[in-house]
């Protein structure tokens, strides 16, 4: 077999089965949707943490901080971020990450057990590629804005930040990201590891500068960017919702990163160091900077805060951090496409897959009003689908399946697999997601961002999660299981953690 080598007989190998696992460098399963063996996992706790921090402390965290600062002041912003991110990061660190790390499965392959093969493909295309392209465009536009500011200050010119120059620089960010991604996940990890410490330094630097110029009481007295509100409680709940949505936005990325971790703890806890603590810290810095300067645009903070020289250096690092964030989520989406995109994409070369993800982003950078200038609503659009999706996956894996999935069944064709449901689609799971999404839209209008009266007590993401979870549980117990669909009766055979029987 090309690319593999027989390593030993059944008795000689640790697994007890016929061993044709490849030697390192001959067959890289991390760039396929194949289940990874334990020996193939490449990230320990600290390596996963470095990637996670690199992913978290990008300018999207600063954007998040600025969006929150629009509604509330410093103290309520910090509370809203910790509460909102804490709840949603806990859920996304469990639902997609735990099945992926346990079985080494790509996360969209994993949700075939919940949604069916065709259903998983629908979500993969909707969630992974569209959102990845949109987020990449946001980051690339920020990269363009930042670099225009750098050029203006270094060369004494006055290019407009929102002009064609910024879009062209954003396009360069996309091209560079594609060139690095084409080399695979090891290069992603190396770039993130180099940038993460510099980003932490910048975050700490901004905190020091802001606090050296303002006392705590002065900072807490600052009014939100949107001005004083008649209903501060509603504004606080909107800020919590923004952060819940921000946390759920990590759903498409985290499972495939956790898949590369060596232990369940190395898959779970780095999310708390990265997408929780680092995100909250960076967003809190964004809140402090935005409120103290009364400026919402993050690329306009660095030079007023740190002076031209340090400000330009900080901006360059932040621009590079945007690249690391594009890389991390680009990798996750490419693995997803490889696994769930059908025969055509399965055969596609790794660089071509990068083009599928980043190609739409290269177009979107020329339309910044579509995503970048409507950040709050854009995050909310993601949460409408992602919160219920996370709920259905959580209930299915942890409650209905008791953390057992048949890896063989995930890869069996429609008709043969117990996860076939109705022609490859679990209509019950889709109905549950729709119920959750409808709940969200009733509580917080995704177009006008107008909240319903009940929103001030519940937020929108949490009821959407709860409704989707309850709907999936009930529909599965009442409709799916009685028809013998979904393999919910399968349990592991004694002595094997993965072989299943009724």
């Amino acid at each position: 077999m090309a690319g593999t080598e027989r390593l030993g007989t059944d008795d000689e190998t640790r697994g007890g089965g016929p061993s044709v696992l490849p030697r390192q460098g001959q067959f890289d399963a991390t760039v396929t949707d194949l289940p990874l063996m334990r020996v193939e996992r490449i990230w320990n706790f600290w390596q996963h943490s470095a990637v996670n921090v690199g992913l978290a402390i990008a300018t999207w965290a600063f954007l998040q901080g600025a969006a929150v600062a629009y509604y509330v002041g410093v103290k309520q912003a910090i509370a809203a971020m910790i509460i909102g991110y804490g709840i949603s990061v806990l859920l996304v660190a469990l639902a997609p990450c735990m099945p992926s790390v346990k079985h080494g499965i790509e996360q969209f392959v994993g949700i075939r057990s919940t949604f069916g093969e065709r259903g998983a493909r629908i979500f993969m295309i909707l969630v992974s590629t569209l959102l990845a392209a949109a987020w990449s465009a946001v980051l690339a536009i920020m990269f363009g804005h930042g670099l225009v500011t750098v050029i203006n200050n270094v060369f004494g010119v006055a290019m407009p930040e929102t002009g064609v120059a910024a879009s062209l620089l954003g396009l360069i960010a996309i091209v560079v990201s594609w060139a690095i991604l084409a080399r695979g996940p090891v290069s992603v990890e190396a770039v993130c590891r180099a940038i993460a410490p510099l980003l932490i330094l910048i975050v700490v630097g901004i905190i020091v500068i802001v606090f050296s110029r303002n006392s705590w009481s002065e900072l807490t007295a600052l009014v939100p960017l949107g001005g004083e509100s008649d209903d501060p409680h509603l504004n606080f709940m909107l800020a919590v919702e923004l952060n819940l949505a921000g946390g759920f936005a990590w759903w498409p990325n985290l499972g495939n990163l956790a898949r590369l971790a060596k232990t369940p703890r190395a898959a779970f806890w780095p999310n708390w160091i990265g997408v929780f603590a680092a995100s909250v810290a960076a967003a809190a810095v964004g809140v402090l900077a935005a409120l103290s300067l009364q400026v919402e645009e993050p690329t306009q903070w660095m030079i007023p805060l740190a002076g031209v020289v340090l400000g330009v250096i900080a901006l360059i690092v932040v621009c590079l951090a945007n690249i690391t964030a594009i890389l991390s989520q680009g990798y996750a989406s490419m693995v997803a496409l490889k696994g769930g995109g059908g025969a055509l994409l399965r055969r596609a070369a790794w660089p071509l897959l990068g083009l599928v993800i980043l190609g739409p982003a290269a177009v979107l950078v020329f339309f910044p009003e579509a995503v970048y200038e409507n950040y709050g609503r854009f995050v909310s659009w993601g949460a409408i689908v992602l919160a219920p999706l996370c709920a259905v996956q959580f209930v299915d894996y942890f409650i209905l399946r008791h953390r057992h999935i048949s890896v063989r069944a995930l890869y069996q064709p429609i008709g043969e697999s117990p996860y076939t449901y109705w022609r490859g689609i679990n209509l019950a799971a889709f109905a549950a997601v729709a119920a959750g999404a409808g709940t969200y839209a009733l509580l917080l209008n995704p177009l006008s961002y107008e909240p319903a009266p009940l929103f001030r007590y519940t937020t929108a993401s949490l009821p959407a999660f709860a409704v989707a979870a309850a709907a999936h549980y009930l529909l599965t117990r009442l409709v799916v299981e009685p028809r013998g669909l979904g393999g919910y009766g399968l349990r592991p055979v004694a002595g094997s953690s993965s072989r299943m029987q009724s």
Partner: protein
Amino acid sequence: MDAQILQDQLEQRIKFLESSNSAEHLVGDLPARDIVACVLALTLMTAVLLWWAY
């Protein structure tokens, strides 16, 4: 990548995972105490923050 190589690899990997020593190829479950610790810490932190920020 050759589809046949991928198919062969998949078959071999599933055999490993379904073998009697599959635990050596799988990563285990996250201990329940880790999840409980997270939930408790989050609940406590939320209560403290709501008291502090209001």
